[in-house]
């Protein structure tokens, strides 16, 4: 500390609160060990890097990678009597979910697993296509509108993120249930129905509504980046508005479309709550099956094997996607 610092500090005539605060200040932020630590870290740039970036990496290593590695190990072990895990290496779990017919709680797990995995991918695909078709228009609107309410409208797209997911799915029970809004309104116009719950339509509708913001926002982002001049210049070169859209706007919004699609697909395939709340027994998805095997029949090794197969399929698909579009679009800087 220079002399001038010191002089100012000593001569200062302070009120009580201020004196207290100043003491706290210099006591903590200028304490000798603190200063020494700062200087030491400054000299060892790499150590500081390791401490900073390393914290997040270490967190994920301990609370995500280690548990995943653990269930990988579990998946090769066996369920013994009374749910006890027997640490005995065998491929039995994979055999049973991929190859054999296994009875579990009255289900044929073998065929069922692949069937349900297939169903999950199908729901994921249906949801992605529907959100894309529905989400492009509002994404385009938000990206192009000159309205002074644009940020408010954007906020309304973001707000549902803040509502607990369970409430967003539950709301559909009120809307589509047998005494719900849709049934009642249909009843007024003379159409009788027992509601739409516990069907494939209900599951996909719920997924679409919940995941729609994940499609709208990236599309909005890429449409908003398109310079008006591109569209105008296409028109001056003789393109009709539709043609200009097809030739200019659509290709330039492709990054948003692919980002939104990947995200929606991944989130839809892994959904637990949509089938659990809105679907019937026939509409289960892979998350439900894993949950049931783990939580209800306490077969941890089998559930682990199911989770591993799901992860392998998911990351294979992500890698293939990545070939074509690049996930940087989604998580890039």
């Amino acid at each position, binding site marked *: *500390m*220079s002399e*001038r*610092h010191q002089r*100012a500090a000593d001569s200062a005539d302070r009120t009580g609160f201020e004196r207290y605060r*100043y003491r706290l200040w210099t006591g903590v932020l200028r304490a000798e060990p603190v200063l020494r630590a700062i200087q030491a870290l400054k000299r060892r740039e790499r150590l500081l890097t390791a401490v900073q970036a390393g914290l997040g990496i270490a967190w994920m290593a301990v609370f995500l990678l280690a548990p995943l590695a653990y269930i990988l190990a579990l998946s090769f072990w066996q369920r013994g009597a009374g749910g006890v895990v027997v640490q005995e290496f065998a491929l039995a779990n994979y055999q049973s979910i991929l190859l054999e017919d296994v009875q579990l709680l009255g289900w044929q797990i073998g065929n069922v697993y692949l069937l349900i995995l297939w169903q999950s991918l199908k729901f994921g695909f249906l949801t992605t296509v529907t959100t894309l078709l529905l989400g492009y228009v509002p994404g385009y609107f938000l990206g192009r509108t000159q309205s002074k309410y644009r940020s408010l409208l954007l906020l309304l797209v973001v707000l549902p993120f803040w509502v607990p997911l369970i409430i967003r799915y539950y709301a559909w029970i009120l809307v589509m249930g047998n005494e719900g809004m849709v049934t009642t309104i249909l009843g007024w116009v003379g159409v009788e129905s027992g509601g739409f719950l516990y069907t494939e339509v209900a599951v996909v509708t719920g997924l679409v509504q919940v995941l729609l913001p994940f499609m709208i926002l990236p599309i909005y982002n890429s449409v908003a980046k398109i310079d008006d001049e591109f569209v105008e210049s296409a028109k001056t070169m003789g393109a009709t508005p539709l043609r200009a859209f097809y030739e200019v706007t659509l290709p330039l919004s492709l990054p948003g479309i692919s980002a939104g699609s990947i995200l929606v697909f991944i989130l839809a395939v892994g959904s637990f709550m949509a089938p659990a709340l809105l679907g019937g027994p026939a509409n289960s998805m892979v998350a439900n099956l894993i949950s049931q095997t783990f939580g209800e029949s306490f077969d941890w090794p089998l559930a682990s094997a199911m989770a591993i197969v799901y992860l392998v399929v998911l990351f294979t698909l992500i890698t293939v996607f990545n070939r074509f579009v690049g996930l940087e679009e989604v998580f890039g800087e």
Partner: protein
Amino acid sequence: MSHVEVEHVTKQFGDVTAVDDVTFTAEEGEFVSLLGPSGCGKTTTLRMIAGLEMPTEGAIRIGGEDVTDRPAYEREIGMVFQHYALFPHKSVGENVGFPLKMRGVPAAERRERVAEVLERVRLPDVMDRSPEELSGGQQQRVALARALVFEPDVLLMDEPLSALDRVLREQMRVEVQRIQREFDITTIYVTHDQAEAFAMSDRVAVLDEGHLAQQGRPLDIYESPQTKFVANFIGESTTLSGTVADRDGKRLLETDAGVTFELPAAPGLADDRMTVYLRAEKLGISPDSSGATNEFPATIATTNYLGEKTQFFCTLADGTELVVAEQGFTALDAYDAGDTVYVTIDPADLVVARDPGQDESNTAVDESVA
């Protein structure tokens, strides 16, 4: 002993040498500019004086004290940044009061001193505003006030006017100078703008690719550049090199371009390699030969009418390019591309220096590290 002494300072970023053995000084109360193109190491030099970069080699002394190893916050320097670096979450008063707060000055006294310094930079009544509400010129004054309020030993400024538009920039030039004089503070000012450096500074240090090319008063730098780089960077000029010869009691320079100049009584012996720098605005142009000394023919390639002056881009017989600038020129119609014209220069206006051609050993510098 000078107030600020930069001695043999070198800064390397990995394999790149951004500043190479630079030495210069600033006297108490003096205004010194570091002038040079982007990438010349001027900003890195300033940042080393500030303590934001540590020199690889060399020493920096302020007021006789060696501060080379001191961090920025123990150096008592005020710095104005290119984009002002005002804290957006603090009011103008809190911004200006920040260095006082860091020095433990109590709030009441802080407010007084902040008000006083804002008065002195002619920006009263903005204490409680957010800096973001102020215009560029006003933000500039706040940044200056913040750098001056704690009466630092040195004021450092890094291209502070470059973010302003041209008219405001010229007004602020005068204003910064006034404030500097009033506070009587040693100032080191980084700029790439020659006019700015010349207008404001007592002395200018020209940097070229990490080296100090020349330090001196603006007049000396302009009238007697010591390197080809300085001659070219400060205004437009054409460089011709040749061999000195004594003929008929006259000292002549026979240039490689085929033009012969009569030299004034200047250093250099017969057979020495010498270089002349022909300042564009010191050259005269005429359609006819007048037979004067130091007159030579050239061919017009292009004419640029710029209003206050007109530039003629000419070529000599061997293809060497030459720029002539005429002030307030109106007889444009008399000159067409392809015309042969006669160019003259007063022997007194010839800038002659030893030919630097052979001993140039500059390293390339990457501006991104600066």
